[in-house]
């Protein structure tokens, strides 16, 4: 995540807005989590930073030396465990970077809690395995539990710090809850008109937005959206376009009582050097179950930023090559070796 992205995160902007108010420089020291409460966790942002670096260190270790880690925590040094450790390593690094890149890393810290749950689930399974070294697995589980407690406390403190910031804010905060905000960009080697036109027909969106089942146009500015939600459920809502500047910008929001209230916008900016069009997407939604549910979902591959990034990559593939690109492994949900599969590919099997 770049510094530029950082400046535009919700909390960063709110902070900046507040500074522009006449009394912006209030001296109560809030906002950066420097609250006056006592105790070792008094500054949750600092603790979070520590957790961030811890994540990166552990992640690097899991990637660089899965074998050694496997031995250390008493599990089999087999390919499955090594691959799992590698995936966990990537997850740790991503969560560490997430924490360090944000001013108020509420979501990434809760994501760590979700990660702890995954680790514990993994270790529980390993404990049950006949070939594991039970005392080492148990020691590892206790260590993870300790970190989990710290993660939860830090997450709670950060959430509280941000809540109070919301309350004293100036109305930029979304109507309900904190919401999840995602910004992602991609450059597509096609003219802005073409990309705009494709996106403006919302019925095209499910072609590249993996979670969308369908979008149905309901006339001029309204549309009906149906999306796959975690755990096999679906959510539906109606949306309306709030702004439509041809070849430049489209923004929309859910209307009425949407299950998942959301807003979104996409900007189309000509890329310098004859490189097509920069597509800047911004989404904000209030997930059912709030931030914690979102953070846990994130750990199981439902991370919204990654999701949008993947969606944009598929949009680019569709615009530039005519279709979403598949590999022998990518057509399957979950793990599948890179070899052809016996079953014919069905629409639903595609990611």
């Amino acid at each position, binding site marked *: 995540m770049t510094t530029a992205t950082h400046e535009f995160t919700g909390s960063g902007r709110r902070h900046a807005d507040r500074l522009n108010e006449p009394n912006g420089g209030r001296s109560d020291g809030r906002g950066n989590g420097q609250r006056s409460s006592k105790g070792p966790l008094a500054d949750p942002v600092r603790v979070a930073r520590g957790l961030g670096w811890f994540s990166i260190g552990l992640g690097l270790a899991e990637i660089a030396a899965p074998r050694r880690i496997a031995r250390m925590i008493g599990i089999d040094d087999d390919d499955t465990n090594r*691959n799992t450790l590698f995936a966990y390593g990537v997850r740790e690094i991503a969560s560490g970077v997430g924490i360090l890149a944000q001013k108020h890393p509420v979501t990434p810290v809760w994501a760590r809690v979700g990660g702890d749950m995954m680790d514990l689930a993994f270790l529980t399974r390993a404990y049950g395995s006949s070939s594991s070294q039970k005392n080492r697995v148990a020691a590892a589980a206790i260590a993870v539990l300790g970190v989990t407690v710290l993660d939860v406390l830090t997450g709670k403190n950060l959430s509280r710090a941000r809540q109070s910031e919301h309350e004293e804010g100036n109305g930029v905060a979304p109507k309900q809850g904190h919401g999840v905000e995602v910004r992602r960009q991609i450059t597509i080697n096609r003219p802005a008109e073409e990309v705009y036109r494709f996106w403006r027909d919302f019925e095209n969106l499910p072609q590249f937005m993996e979670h969308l089942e369908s979008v149905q146009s309901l006339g001029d500015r309204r549309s009906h959206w149906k999306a796959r939600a975690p755990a096999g459920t679906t959510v539906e809502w109606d949306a309306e376009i709030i702004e439509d500047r041809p070849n430049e910008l489209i923004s929309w929001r859910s209307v009425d009582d949407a299950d998942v209230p959301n807003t979104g916008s996409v900007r189309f900016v000509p890329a310098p050097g004859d490189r097509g069009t920069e597509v800047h997407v911004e989404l904000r939604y209030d997930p059912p179950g709030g931030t914690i549910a979102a953070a846990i979902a994130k750990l199981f591959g439902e991370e919204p930023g990654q999701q949008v990034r993947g969606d944009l990559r598929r949009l680019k593939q569709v615009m530039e090559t*005519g279709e979403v690109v598949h590999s022998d492994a990518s057509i399957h949900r979950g793990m599948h070796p890179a070899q052809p599969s016996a079953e014919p590919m069905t629409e639903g099997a595609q990611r």
Partner: protein
Amino acid sequence: MKANCWMGKRKLEVRDVPDPKILNSRDAIIRVTSTAICGSDLHIYNGFIPTMEKGDILGHEFMGEVVETGSAVKNLKTGDRVVVPFTISCGACSMCQRDLWSLCENSNPNAAIAETLMGHSPAGLFGYSHMLGGFAGGQAEFARVPFADVGPLKVPAGIPDEQVLFLSDIFPTGYMGAEMCNIRQGDVIAVWGCGPVGQFAIASAKLLGAERVIAIDRFPYRLQMAADKAGATETINYEEESVLERLLELTGGRGPDACIDAVGLEAHGPAAIYAYDRAKQALMLETDRPIALREAIIACRPGGTVSVIGVYGGLVDKFPLGALMNKSLTIRTGQTHMHRYMRPLLERIERGEIDPSFVITHRMKLEDAPKGFETFVHKRENCEKVVLSA
């Protein structure tokens, strides 16, 4: 069909797997007639490439006959004989259009993993981990080739497989290694590693007009091949003499004008340095052993070029950045931009300027792929290059 599957570190099995199918309209299915084992396959074999899964079909050097094409493939028809580049490229993104084919922005469906590790993802590759796409490889009876309207090169019937097969990777890779040296008249080029890619780097440096090419390795038979077949003017066995001293001696104290690292992340070297890096790898303090690359940087003449075509995967330790900066060196590197080189190099083969089959030492059946890996990795029977046929 039969396919050579990775079943774990140093564990391969030729298994029966389903035949490939068209998944995208720009795909073609190829009946593989010849395929080869690449030195970079050995990194997978030895467990240095992450995100492999049991059952992954290996192989990224292959050629064969088109048996089926997707609806959008207009330039190929059933029966065409083609060589397939190991990098998968769409031809439509700005990287492909800038002739940077191995950086194709659309061909890796699993780009997210690569982005986490490297910031951005390179192109998808055949049979080279899930991080690089999860594409089944070509050490099989049949292979699915995405973007078949862009990648595969048609070859005329008159030339045997063995002369054109290496257009799939190692000849263009060695050639790009030499081209990146920006060779001028009178230049002396040193090449670390006399595996197949090193041999082609040496041969290409000669083709591109190098005055002298110095080959460095530790296996006498490989140095012999470099001198006899590839055209190296001098050879250095690093187990017998100091590479740095010998290079100074051969260049009047200047150092080579350009150095090519055709070794990569599993380098060997003098016992103490090798032990140091191997220990670092084991202790998770580095993922790659840059022994050859370090030496190339130290050896290179001030203002010269270091061309890196050996494969690296992650992080290295004790990288002589000071030498790089203070000697104004240029580092050039990359996965091969295959599509740039295949046709011109085919023309060189057709004109008789080079016969790439000189590197082949072992010919086997696809069923014997595991034995081929075994022979290659241990350099048994003076193994240089193994070609598998269907």
